[in-house]
């Protein structure tokens, strides 16, 4: 279970579908799998730095600009059967890459769904629209999970968080289709888990663009055209009562690393029921093709301890395209209308 990662599946099945109908997704070069970005993560941690020196923007900031993706096959949490194993060996990684390629080839040939079990929910060809993550460049790395450390999993919830979540779920139960506000944020085109912060790869479209201007870094996630404009001029956070879906991000440079501190989240996003979420992100360009992305998440009222993750972000070709979600969100309409029709039919049957 991923706390608050609201329904990848429902996303794919409703809002996302509509978005695809109107939006051209980034045209990925099929099969353009990046060479294993060992440079970033083959070392056991971010501390293993190469002598590579990033170029500078005209203002003298380390240059993180470009179109990127954090598309990955690495799960957020370590699979149970890999407990204690933080990294794949080179051989294991090579085998994993080969498997992905074969799966992709099969897909391209036969147009089969890529993820048996989940694909049954969707009505379109996975080989189209860049839905298959293997069609997009993948930021390969040796990690067995994005979350670092021996556990490799989100730490346990505090008892009060457990209760909060249970209470909310109990309240929501049976009302999942009552109205728009009962639907997941993604299905409502309000917020997507890939945006965070932290930036976490999505099942598809993990495309990012970074633009730097004097005193600002903008990180735009293609999906759903969410641009975080991050000041790096040392200003403090917004007043505590101003809550935002993406929180309030302020940044500063530590050597070649952009450090982003984010607070002022709502208690709905990105981790539902987290009330004092604090996210610190570190972006370090480790070579021309790679940004090492590290993050730490903490909320003492939510988890018993902070947790950290790390994954490479890799350069990709192209420009970001417009991802308009809300403008044709028939998925939400259809979901609600379907629920009403089902209710009517049930009522009709009951009166018979």
């Amino acid at each position, binding site marked *: 279970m991923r706390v608050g990662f609201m329904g990848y599946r429902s996303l794919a099945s409703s809002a996302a579908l509509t978005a695809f109908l109107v*939006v*051209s997704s980034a*045209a990925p070069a099929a099969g353009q799998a990046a060479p294993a970005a060992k440079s970033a993560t083959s070392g056991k941690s971010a501390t293993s730095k190469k002598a590579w020196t990033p170029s500078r*923007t*005209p*203002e*003298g900031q380390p240059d993180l*600009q470009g179109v990127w993706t954090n598309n990955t096959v690495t799960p957020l949490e370590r699979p149970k059967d890999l407990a204690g194993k933080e990294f794949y060996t080179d051989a294991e990684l090579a085998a994993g890459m080969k498997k992905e390629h074969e799966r992709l080839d099969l897909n391209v040939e036969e147009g089969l769904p890529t993820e048996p079990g989940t694909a049954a929910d969707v009505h379109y060809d996975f080989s189209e629209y860049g839905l298959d993550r293997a069609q997009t460049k993948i930021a390969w790395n040796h990690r067995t999970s994005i979350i670092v450390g021996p556990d490799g999993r989100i730490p346990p919830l505090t008892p009060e968080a457990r209760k909060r979540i249970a209470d909310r779920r109990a309240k929501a139960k049976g*009302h999942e*289709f*009552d*109205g*728009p*506000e009962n639907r997941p944020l993604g299905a*409502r*085109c*309000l*917020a997507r888990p890939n945006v965070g912060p932290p930036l976490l790869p999505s099942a598809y479209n993990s495309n990012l*663009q970074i*633009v*730097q*201007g*004097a*005193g*600002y870094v*903008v990180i*735009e996630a293609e999906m*759903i*055209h*969410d*641009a975080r*404009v991050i*000041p790096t001029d040392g*200003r403090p956070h*917004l007043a505590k009562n*101003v809550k*935002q*879906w*993406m929180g309030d991000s302020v940044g500063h440079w530590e050597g070649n690393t952009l450090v982003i501190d984010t607070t002022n989240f709502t208690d709905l996003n990105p981790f539902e029921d987290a009330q004092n979420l604090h996210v610190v992100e570190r972006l370090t360009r480790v070579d021309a093709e790679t940004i090492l992305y590290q993050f730490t998440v903490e909320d003492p009222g939510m988890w018993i301890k902070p947790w950290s993750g790390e994954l490479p972000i890799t350069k990709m070709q192209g*420009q*970001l*395209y*417009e991802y*308009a979600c*809300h*403008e044709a969100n028939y998925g*939400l*309409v259809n979901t*609600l*209308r379907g*629920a*009403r029709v089902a*209710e009517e039919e049930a009522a009709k049957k009951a009166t018979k």
Partner: protein
Amino acid sequence: MYRLGHIVLAGALCLAALPAWSQTAAHRAPRTADGKPNLNGIWQALNSADWDLQGHAAAQGPVYALGAVFSIPPGLSVVEGDEIPYLPAAAAKQKENRANWVKLDPEVKCYLPGVPRATYLPYPFQIVQSRENIMMVYEYAGAVRTINMGAPTKAPADSWMGWSNGHWEGETLVVDVTSQNADTWFDRAGDFHSEALHVVERYTPRSADILNYEATIEDPKVFSRPWKISMPLYRRVEKDARLLEYKCVEFTEELLYGPLRKKASK
């Protein structure tokens, strides 16, 4: 009580003392580190163009319950010559749009605003200038566009915010916008366009904290000739000025999906 009359008058004079709009002689903007005019900052139009590009008197708003809070503020025209040169059929459609604007205006539904409307919506937007791109991030709906400052590229498909290629002409940032879909409007008065819309925007620094904004609008399916709007854009100079989230999708859900809400059980 004694000074009330004086206060009213003083306020009136303050407003009145604002300088009349006029083109000013070339102002040389400060430069970015790579030598380009520096337009970085948070900007906002201060007019009622989003209500109606053309001159308009104050009018009753659409929601009686909101009284004076949401009625239509008066405004002078931002259209050169105060006339939008509609072709006859398009003029009829504009009239219909205006009559039904609450129902039809994409802004009501929190749809992406398109260009140039994004510029003069009553929300700030931020210009972030890099060497290769200039990003314009709009507070309204989290709309955003990236202006390519390199060799012009072609849009792969139409979109709400269109495809922007920019270049510098002296102090002026010129942005050529094409490939906008036909679903956006210019204002709440029902002024509209087709997918053949071609917009050329010009951002010219006028002083440290003011940009002159011009947009030439061309759409042979809707207008008999190109026409032009112009207005100043003011820098948000507050200490700590920044864009905040205006994710308005949530505010439109009752409007768009409310009728599909489960009825309260009887």
